[in-house]
């Protein structure tokens, strides 16, 4: 009974958190809209990972005050990642060199209405970390630049393989002169946490307007219960797992005795 109530409580707290984030975004929007040449919002500010979660799509839509290009940058929570390189030692491939990156986004995607190099220069891209080549990952080790570049591209390649970094630029579609929209896809293995969705309006090679919208990715319901249980009471979780397994084995044995 209490577990059920706790579950419902958690679901509510997540909903409220999502709502508050949305509200904040709304207030932020309203307060700055008079000066903003770009306004954008998401179809949802909360991605709920339930037991049946297989990935989801969020629609970003917005409007500009006229000419210009739009770039959307979605960045997941940043965590440390270790990249290891295997080398052949005594005939077998084992991990040899490793490099740790401190600030690696769990998710990264860029969408634009036309190829980046057609409307914006390198300095702007670097300053706003637009595009994978300009993403700052915070390598900890001091390495020769060519070696570091190898590890860096390996990290990005592995993330792309996992579907967490965009392989190509996403497409921002303009509906008429000012209205634009794009779909952002989040795969089933999307990491949880607070995401930043940045919309940039670029005119004559400069960012003239920018807006950041938060997005929460959170486990809810049964999968959240299990995750919290395993994190907060690991020992009791382990005991429960063992008892459950013994019961299941016993049950199956009892059922099959009749057969």
């Amino acid at each position: 009974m209490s577990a059920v109530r706790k579950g419902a409580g958690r679901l509510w707290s997540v909903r409220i958190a999502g709502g508050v984030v949305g509200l904040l975004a709304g207030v932020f929007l309203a307060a700055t809209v008079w000066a903003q040449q770009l306004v954008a919002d998401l179809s949802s500010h909360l991605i709920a990972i339930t037991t049946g979660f297989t990935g989801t799509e969020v629609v970003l839509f917005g409007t500009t005050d006229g000419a210009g290009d739009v770039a959307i940058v979605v960045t997941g929570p940043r965590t440390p990642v270790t990249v290891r390189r295997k080398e052949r030692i005594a005939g077998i491939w084992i991990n040899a060199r490793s490099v740790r990156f401190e600030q690696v986004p769990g998710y990264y995607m860029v969408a634009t209405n036309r190829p980046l190099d057609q409307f914006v220069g390198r300095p702007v891209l670097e300053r706003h970390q637009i595009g994978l080549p300009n993403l700052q990952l915070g390598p900890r080790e001091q390495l020769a630049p060519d070696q570091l570049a190898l590890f860096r591209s390996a990290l990005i390649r592995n993330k792309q393989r996992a579907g967490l970094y965009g392989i190509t630029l996403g497409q921002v579609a303009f509906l008429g002169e000012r209205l634009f929209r794009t779909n952002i896809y989040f795969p089933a293995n999307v990491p949880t946490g607070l995401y930043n969705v940045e919309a940039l309006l670029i005119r004559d090679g400069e960012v003239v307007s920018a807006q950041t919208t938060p997005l929460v990715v959170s486990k809810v319901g049964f999968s959240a219960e299990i995750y919290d249980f395993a994190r907060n009471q690991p020992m009791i979780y382990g005991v429960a797992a063992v008892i459950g397994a013994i019961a299941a084995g016993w049950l199956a044995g009892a059922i099959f005795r009749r057969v």
Partner: protein
Amino acid sequence: MQVYLPIAEMSVNALLVLGMGGLVGFLSGMFGVGGGFLMTPLLIFIGVPPAIAVGTQANQLVAASVSGVLAHWRRGNVDVKLGVVMLLGGMVGTVVGVWIFSILQRIGQIDAAITLSYVFFLGTIGTMMMVEASRALIRRRAPTAKRGKLHRHMWLHGLPLKMRFQRSKLYISALLPAGIGAVGGMLVAIMGIGGGFMLVPAMIYLLNMPTGLVAGTSLFQIIFTTAMATLLQAATNQTVDVMLALLLLIGGVVGAQFGTKAGGRLRGEQARLLLASLVVAVALKLAFDLVMEPNDVFTISTRMS
């Protein structure tokens, strides 16, 4: 049908996992081995992180062993006394194994160490079993061949602390089954497997135990070592995914029941030859992976090391 695994943080096809559990459970019931040595590579193959594959596996092996033991128990094929002695050794082995695991993890070589130990143990034991079982089959075909000695004496039988195991009709040193249990416990901790593929031949060839009792007794012992491994993994690494374990064990317990029945129809030598071929095949596959240049020599890990 996709199901999201809360600890592994990924979505898998439920039917695929159920099928994998069923297949491995069938083999487990048939040969009296836990089947972990097959399940770990299978889980990693479908994209489950190795640490979670190992931890979850220990959990599902508890269920598979319980249901397997029940079937053997009803046939009176469990030597509890011998099992308990093995278990005492197994506890010590598990603790030592966890200690070794943590050292390997610290120096960043746990993956290679796991694969190498798989190749080594599976390769050696598989080959030995294969040779022995083929010989036994040939001997059976040629009845004129000289009969082997009923009981061979090795230095192992001169060890102190002799104990009588009535059920198995053995009078041997307690250190022997305890030592076998200890090695089994280490395998549970390091490789995330029940260790049945090692326990079964060791009990047959080193203890000279009656073959009929081996499967039940090793499963009995495996229940406890895997339960302990589950606890340790859940408490220290949080790598036990109960959702994944549930899927695996539903498939596993059902498969194990059919496997036990099928195993009853097989002759000892045939079953051993089949198991040996399977073990050698897995060892060869893993050895191949270790020697072949990987598609990408770089790997990434988000876990703290």
